[in-house]
Every structure is written in C-alpha cells, then in structure tokens.
C-alpha cells in the first residue's frame, strides 16, 4: 500500500526567507504523480505544484520548487522569498498513474512571520 509521510508537523520562517518542507512516500508503482497542496486558513485546498515520476527534472512554479529524488522516494517543497500569504497547511500527496485514489500526508503547518 502507498503511504505518504510528512515528518514536520509545524514550521516557521521569516518573511523573505527560504523554507523546505519534507515528504517521503512508499510505493511499488513506477508511474505516479506527486503533489503539494496548500490549505490556507480560509480552508479551500489548492494545488501548489505537481511532479510526474517519469520526469527527472524538478518541477518549478514561480517561488515554489521541488526536490524529487525517486530512488530515495523523497519529494520536498522549497518556498523561496516566503510571503505572509504562504501561511497555510501544506499537504504532500501521491496518486499512481491510472489510479483514482489520492493518498495524503499528515500535513505541515507553515507560519510565515513578519
């Protein structure tokens, strides 16, 4: 069975600094997608970034980038130039290609301090 582990329940970062959120996963599948979702205090969950397992190049979306290490089954999220609006719960998630069930990690609560 697939599992997703986020070992950092809470983190904080000063505004404008960089922070990295960790995620590891376990699967026997070779084709899958990995995601980072953000859930601000207003509650609606949105996608931050997506990585296809077959792509070696790490995904980047503006200030957000990932470090995808397939062999190590690691998928960390780096947030550069942190902003107050980045304060939220961040969930790492996995779905295998062709599947329909997304597996979520426990989440990391990130506080960005002014």
């Amino acid at each position: 069975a697939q599992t997703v582990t986020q070992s950092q329940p809470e983190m904080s970062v000063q505004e404008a600094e960089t922070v990295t959120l960790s995620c590891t996963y376990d699967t026997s599948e070779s084709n899958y997608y990995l995601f980072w979702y953000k859930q601000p205090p207003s509650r609606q969950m949105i996608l931050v970034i997506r990585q296809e397992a077959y792509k070696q190049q790490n995904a980047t979306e503006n200030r957000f980038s990932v470090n995808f290490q397939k062999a190590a089954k690691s998928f960390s999220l780096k947030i550069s130039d942190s902003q107050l609006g980045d304060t939220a719960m961040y969930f790492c998630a996995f779905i295998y290609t062709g599947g329909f069930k997304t597996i979520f990690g426990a989440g990391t609560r990130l506080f960005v301090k002014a």
Partner: protein
Amino acid sequence: SAVISQKPSRDICQRGTSLTIQCQVDSQVTMMFWYRQQPGQSLTLIATANQGSEATYESGFVIDKFPISRPNLTFSTLTVSNMSPEDSSIYLCSVAGVGTGNTGELFFGEGSRLTVL
C-alpha cells in the same frame, strides 16, 4: 480546472440529527470524492461517488452513516446521519482534473464545517 460549490459552508447540529451537504461542479465529471478532515488533521477519503452506480466506501465508512447520492455528472450529496460530536469535522467535496491530459490533480470545494453539540 473545475469550480466546486459546497453548501452549507458551516452548520451547528444537534446530536442524533442528520445533515445533507451538497456539492455542485461547473463541469461534468466522472468521479466525485468526499473527504473528512477532522480538526488539525489530514484528509480521509470517505467514498467515491460515481454517476449511475453505488458509491464506493473506504474502510471504516458505511452507507448507513454516510449515504451519498450522485444523480448526474455535476452534482452529489453526502448525508451525515445520526450525528454525534465525533462527527464534528470539515467535509470536503473534490473532483479529479477534467478534460484531456488529466494528471490526477484534485479540485476542492471550500468545505462544510459541521459542529455537533
């Protein structure tokens, strides 16, 4: 992308009553998912709702407690029956990416925050 509307956004309910949550999507989707998020916790999948067939429930969730309807490709309801304080949670409706090139991304409604007294 998909825009999802959920009603109610929040409610306070009495023990023993039932509440139905509605989920409306702005496009036709095959699968709709219902999640529960207990305070400070991650998302737990309750069931997958397919149009024209019975919902598929995850381990620990049963139809008698969480009946689901899926009358068409843009709408679903989740009922939380015979509520107890342990049912106090946020209930989230979501759909997978629509259109071609679906890459498994989920789109979420704003959630329904239920408090059971």
